[in-house]
């Protein structure tokens, strides 16, 4: 955990911006249930509203996801965090960082923003308690100065929630 600072804000490559435009069109024609994209003219940062699924602990709660795309998307995963206030969940830290393998080691260019959203909603839905991670305070203290969750070396040890 040596490097720090915000994700590099290099502009999207041509390939990345072509692909994102297509994802955006696909999203608009076929948006995932429970999500609303707040469009800006910045293709490189998407802010998405999440509505907790009915019948789960998060029913009717709304949260905001912020998705930042790297220059060489989709060779690299996007950075996905919850904007404050983040939901209370055993895998979501109070600074908005999400412990979910597909956002880091298990990313593949076969995934999309839409498929990430569905994974996050399913992670919320399967939770049995509204409680933050056990190591929340220690982790958040270590992440000062807006460090990206992509710089954390994550342990994915629990696939129940």
């Amino acid at each position: 955990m040596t490097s720090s600072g915000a994700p590099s804000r290099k502009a999207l490559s041509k390939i990345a911006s072509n692909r994102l435009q297509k994802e955006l069109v696909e999203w608009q024609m076929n948006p995932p249930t429970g999500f609303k994209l707040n469009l800006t003219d910045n293709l490189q940062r998407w802010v998405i509203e999440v509505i907790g699924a009915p019948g789960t602990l998060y029913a009717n709660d709304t949260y905001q996801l912020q998705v930042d795309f790297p220059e060489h998307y989709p060779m690299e995963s996007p950075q996905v965090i919850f904007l404050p206030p983040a939901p209370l969940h055993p895998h979501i830290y109070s600074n908005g960082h999400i412990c979910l393998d597909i956002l880091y080691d298990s990313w593949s260019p076969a995934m999309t923003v839409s498929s990430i959203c569905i994974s996050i909603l399913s992670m919320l839905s399967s939770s049995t308690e509204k409680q933050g991670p056990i190591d929340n305070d220690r982790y958040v203290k270590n992440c000062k100065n807006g460090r990206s969750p992509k710089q954390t070396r994550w342990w994915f040890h629990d696939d129940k929630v």
Partner: protein
Amino acid sequence: MMNASDNKFSQERIERSRCEELAKSSSFYRKVYSEIEEIGWEPLRRLGGDLTFFSFHILDKKGRAHILEIQLNRDYPNSPPSLSADVPYMFTLEWSINSRLKDVMHQFQKHLDNLQEFWSVLDDIDKSFSVVDAKQPSRASSLRRIHAGNDCIIIVHINFNDPKSLPECRFIGHVPPSTMHMNSLHMLWRRNSKKWSKEKSFPENLECILGIELPKPPGLLQMEDDQQQVECGICYAQFLPTDEELGARSGTRTDYTCENISCNKSFHSLCLTDWLRSITTTRQSFDVLFGNCPYCSDPVAVKINNK
């Protein structure tokens, strides 16, 4: 009738010859194993339990996949391995007692290099015309049957020693309207075959000599309609963008398809290489990257193109 000591003696003999046999075969296994190791395990596709039969997956310069099957005799390396592959003719293996399997691979690769032009001509025919033969004709075949319209078929035979030269050509039609069409094509062929030029591509030559446009492959129209099929699974575009960094590859189509039939995703080999290079599980052998399809996770092998 054998007495006890005779019996014991013959048992010992059997035992000794079994031990010798085992020692021989274990040194055979060690040798074959270490020679496969020199080539690498990634290109290995099949392996017989007794290590006398195996096959390697090899990509040629244009990224066409080939399988080389190798059969070893028990007295290997005293006798050379026997080889088979989907090539129009096999090369003569240069073999000495000191030769190793990697020498076979090198010689095969050289043989593939020599056949590049031959396959380019055939690929060009398959791409440009409606060809009667099976969807993926064997790489060993030097024949193509081309639909010429009106139920007439042209059979061409490409010379693998000189693939750009005037091919042998026969015309076939069965019933009256097609026989007339056939006769006129045949006449044009005989009259104009002097016009054949090695500078032009095969399809250009053929259409120029016959003075007609031949039917296009049925897949082509379908593929143009069905854009989903030819979009790259990584960048989502059919053509790479025009960009200085991409150089000669600017604007090129998808050129790699996952071999898993139920996946069949297309990619630009550039995109797939970029992806494979960005993850740590990818392995490289010479200029080929071995990894997994991002969609179905089946093994993929992509040649790095530095152009």
